[in-house]
């Protein structure tokens, strides 16, 4: 089942001879339960793609459809509601609220989302992400890997359709990075979410069902094994 569609989406900045095409005409489709990697060098348009999909940035042209809702037809408040209900974000530095304990990080979402998760579902989430023992701890008490596990728990809170992960392993060592990708793969399959990981770390693409390369604003699907060596060279 298709969760996310992009039709002829472009994003340009500036005009005339100063015009920069950050994202050229892009068509994209993601189904439920897919873990997708978008790889590419810095400045290639990966983040632009992610922020358009996340409803944080309006495309210059084209249409973004999430579960049948056309994002481009919505105002900021409505897009904010879509983000709250349909999208979970996992960011590079985890971005947990520093003065909230792990339990309260999730309680905040419960309050904002008006509590559509049962206690049993919450406990299951804690167990799935192995954070049950961390509930009373604050972000400053957690390791990088633990922080990302909590960030993923936040992203998964109340079962969003899409998880957008922007360099989720950038601040982690290899072992922790693999742990996080393992976890993202596990929850994507278990909860049938659509997870899009933007990364420049090609070691992570092994975990993904589909891989796309972004170069100079052009998104193209690639065969994982065939072209990884080539992409690796470009990314560096």
């Amino acid at each position: 089942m298709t969760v996310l569609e992009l039709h002829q989406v472009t994003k340009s900045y500036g005009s005339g001879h100063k015009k920069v095409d950050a994202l050229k005409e892009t068509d994209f489709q993601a189904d439920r339960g897919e873990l997708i990697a978008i790889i590419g060098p810095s400045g290639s348009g990966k983040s632009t793609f992610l922020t358009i999909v996340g409803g944080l940035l309006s495309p210059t042209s084209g249409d973004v459809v999430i579960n049948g809702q056309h994002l481009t037809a919505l105002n900021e408040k409505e897009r904010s509601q879509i983000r709250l209900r349909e999208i979970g974000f996992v960011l590079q530095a985890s971005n947990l609220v520093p003065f909230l304990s792990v339990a309260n990080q999730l309680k905040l979402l419960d309050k904002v989302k008006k509590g559509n998760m049962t206690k049993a579902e919450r406990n299951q989430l804690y167990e799935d992400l192995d954070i049950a023992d961390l509930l009373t701890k604050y972000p400053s008490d957690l390791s990088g890997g633990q922080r990302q596990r909590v960030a993923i728990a936040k992203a998964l809170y109340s079962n969003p359709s899409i998880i957008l992960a922007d360099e989720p392993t950038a601040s982690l060592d290899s072992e922790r990075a693999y742990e996080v990708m393992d976890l993202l793969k596990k929850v994507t399959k278990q909860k049938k979410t659509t997870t899009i990981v933007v990364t420049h770390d090609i070691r992570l693409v092994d975990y993904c069902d589909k891989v796309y390369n972004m170069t100079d604003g052009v998104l193209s699907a690639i065969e994982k094994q065939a072209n990884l060596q080539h992409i690796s060279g470009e990314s560096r």
Partner: protein
Amino acid sequence: MFLAWQEIKKNKLRFILITGILMLVSYLVFFLSGLATGLANLNREAVDKWEASAIILTSESDKSLPQSFLTTDQLSDINADKKAVIGQLNAIASNGDQKQNISLFGINKEEFLMPNVVEGRAFEQENEVIADDSLKDKGFNLGDTLTLSSSDQQLTIVGFTDDARFNAAPALYATLSTFHQVKFGEAAEQNNDQINGIVVQDDSISTLTPPNDELESIEIESFIESLPGYTEQKLTLNFMIYFLFGISSIIVAIFLYVLTVQKISMFGVMKAQGISSSYLSWSVVAQTFILSFIGTTIGFVLTLISGTFLPAAVPVSFDLTIMGFYGLILMLVATAGAVFSVLTIVRIDPLKAIGG
């Protein structure tokens, strides 16, 4: 409220500092309001005791009771529900040991200006007076014989009344004839119809018109405000209080703005996650209200505690209604200080926060 309270709990020291400043400002506001009330009472207690609606004085007296000269005949010209004559002079009274500025009121015992007696008895004969009980703190007692400056007349304190100071001087109440004896000495007989004003109790004060242009009907609040120094003193203290309201708002605004700027990235991420600006703004406003409520409440309690240790000579009087009102204003203006932070939150671009 949840986010606001959790942050306060986690960052106690930071918020104790803000609350401490608010507490000190509120302490100062409450203390100044106590001082303003105390000093006002010092001037107006005796007038408030009349429970009058107006006073009739001569037009040329410029609302000054001792400068107004009327006669008792004019009483019948005034059309009011209740009216009472009053003579007044200022003097220095001495009981041999102590000297004190006093305000002597000459009144008719059967009229409503007759004060209540809290100790001793009412005056019955010539040269007997009822004195304001603040004189007791100055070393004056029942039975004391008082000599007055500029008069050979001697007065005896036969009773005390409470809350009866006029223009910062304790009041002495005597019969009109005693007042004439003190004021005119040997010429008292010839001036036995002289008074300074006519005090009126009438619900329809707005329609009270003096019989001729020589007399003026003055509403009692206006009369009090014309007492020498009263309005200037009140305005000065009120100005300080209002200034403190402004200061507290600015202090809170600066503190919160700095805290909000430090959290821009965090708020941006939260907005990217779909948490609305209004939720985050409300959190900051709620946080400010919590801090100002705690600070103001502690300031309120501290003021009352301090008040019990003050010497009687300090003219402080805490009016809980006024203090409550000022406390409320303080909380409101402090909360208004959050407006800059709210504007900052509304303007945060979530895209920048997540590095897009």
